[in-house]
């Protein structure tokens, strides 16, 4: 934590931490405490009068079936994104770990979507899945399927999951590949000598040994889907049709900036903060220690 040898106390360390602390105070801690404070207030739409209402905003939220709908949608969305992108990435990483020639080329060709902004990924999928012009709905028509995510909530959900998962494949692939490469070759050789085929070796040795990586990625992907997919949803569906793709972060935004329900939006912010704190705790406490085989 601290070096055994260090500099004499002076005013210098305060000056050194000052920029970071000022930015943190002004743009992080102050707004967060404001959100906490506002979540106890009821303000009329014109901002003329406010009233301290204790936990009313929270109670209202928890009694609102729409909010619980958003909650369960968010969880479904996050885990679908995590599962889909991790499954594809793991499959590709196992293959890339097998090939001797060209694995560097494959890696380069697979990691670049990391650099694509979520909203740009959204725009790309918006174009491909566009009901009137998009290439995929056109092809689906030949199969007798009419794709229109602007009307069908399930299709809209599938679409945002595809777009969000597509962008995350790169990240998962890199970490799975690193995890695979750190598994001692001697273990796998021993299993091969004992007569275990590639499939069996994967499920009994490689996959269990990857579990720390898998768990780490699960947490990271869920956090990603919770908080960083705003752009994907804003570009593709704006939460629609009929709120079917409205996740928690999107609801905070639309209630606060579009609906101008400040207290409700702040209460939602506070709940989100609690979720982030919980996830951060899980990440730090359990990720590296508990999941060992």
């Amino acid at each position, binding site marked *: 934590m601290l070096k055994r040898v*260090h500099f004499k106390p002076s005013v210098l360390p305060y000056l*050194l931490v000052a920029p970071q602390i000022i930015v943190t105070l002004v*743009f992080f801690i102050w*707004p967060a405490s404001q959100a906490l404070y506002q979540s106890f207030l009821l303000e009329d739409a014109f901002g003329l009068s406010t009233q301290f209402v204790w936990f009313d905003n929270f109670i209202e939220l928890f009694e609102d079936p729409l909010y619980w709908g958003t909650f369960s949608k968010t969880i479904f969305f996050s885990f679908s994104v995590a599962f889909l992108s991790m499954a594809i990435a793991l499959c590709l990483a196992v293959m*890339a770990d097998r090939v001797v020639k060209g694995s560097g080329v494959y890696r380069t060709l697979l990691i670049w979507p*990391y650099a694509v902004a979520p*909203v740009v990924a959204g725009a*790309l999928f918006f174009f491909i899945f566009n009901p009137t012009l998009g290439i995929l709905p056109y092809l689906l028509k030949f199969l007798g399927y009419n794709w229109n995510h602007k009307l069908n909530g399930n299709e809209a959900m599938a679409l945002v999951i595809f777009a969000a998962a597509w962008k995350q494949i790169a990240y998962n692939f890199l970490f799975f590949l690193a995890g695979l490469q750190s598994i001692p070759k001697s273990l796998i050789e021993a299993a091969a000598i004992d007569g275990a085929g590639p499939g069996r070796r994967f499920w009994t040795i490689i996959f269990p040994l990857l579990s720390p990586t898998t768990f780490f990625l699960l947490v990271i992907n869920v956090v990603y889907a919770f908080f960083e997919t705003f752009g994907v949803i804003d*570009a593709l569906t704006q939460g629609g049709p009929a709120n079917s793709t409205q996740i928690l972060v999107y609801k905070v935004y639309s209630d606060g900036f579009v609906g101008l329900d400040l207290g409700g*939006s702040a209460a939602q912010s506070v709940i989100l903060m609690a979720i982030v704190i919980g996830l951060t705790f899980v990440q730090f406490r359990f990720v590296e220690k508990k999941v060992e085989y």
Partner: protein
Amino acid sequence: MIENRPFLKVLSHVILIFGVLLVAFPIWVAFVAATHDAGRMNILPLPMWPGGHFLENLDVALNQGVWGGDGQGVAFMLFNSMIMALVIAFGKIVISLLSAFAIVYFRFPFRMFFFWMIFVTLMLPVEVRILPTFEVVANLGMLNSYWGLTVPLIASATATFMFRQVFLTIPDELLEASRIDGAGPLRFFKDILIPMSQTNIAALFVILFIYGWNQYLWPLLITTDQDMYTIVIQIKRMLEAGEEAPQWHIVMMTTLLAMLPPVVVVVFMQKLFVKGLTETEK
């Protein structure tokens, strides 16, 4: 390779090539769209092979824009995005280096308090405190400015932690030696710590550049003046305004322009990128 199974080898390559195609498909479609003219982009099925209007569309996208984008070219938005990405990356690195240096090399009252305060920022992503942060920035008169675009995003717990980790691995003997040679703290920082963490700084820079370039929600909220738009938010506006008949060839050209700089950074600085990614996510 443990055993030689030609079939599996071929299968691996087939699956990998399939994966590469799956990942690249959206970009191919966008690229093709960006090489055709408006007429062709309204006829089903859409082309799957590039046409000959690439340069023409590039010119329109950069200098004229579409009516969906209020007739604005995106050249200056690329410039805004570049400024934002660079300032965020530099700013985060500088303030994190300084605070990590203070926390590792000095013993002073409230040291741990400051450390935890920085740690807390990890738990407050912009998405969860949108409205109050917007109010703070509005009260400070920083809407529609480069300050407003960058400063609120500059505090970084991950970067501070990473530098702290790096500094802890630097042997104590170096500090002792430089003290004997008469170097003060700032001299030590400048001549020993910074050169020794050069590759970490570069790796972090790559990650932060991408982070800054791809910011969406924040610029969307605080820029109402067109001169301050970044290219990433412009794409959304084009999609929105062009609901009835989007000029897909220009929209897709803009999309390509918006992803080009970060993708180039990832592809050409791959080693640093991978290093940065694995180091910051701990």
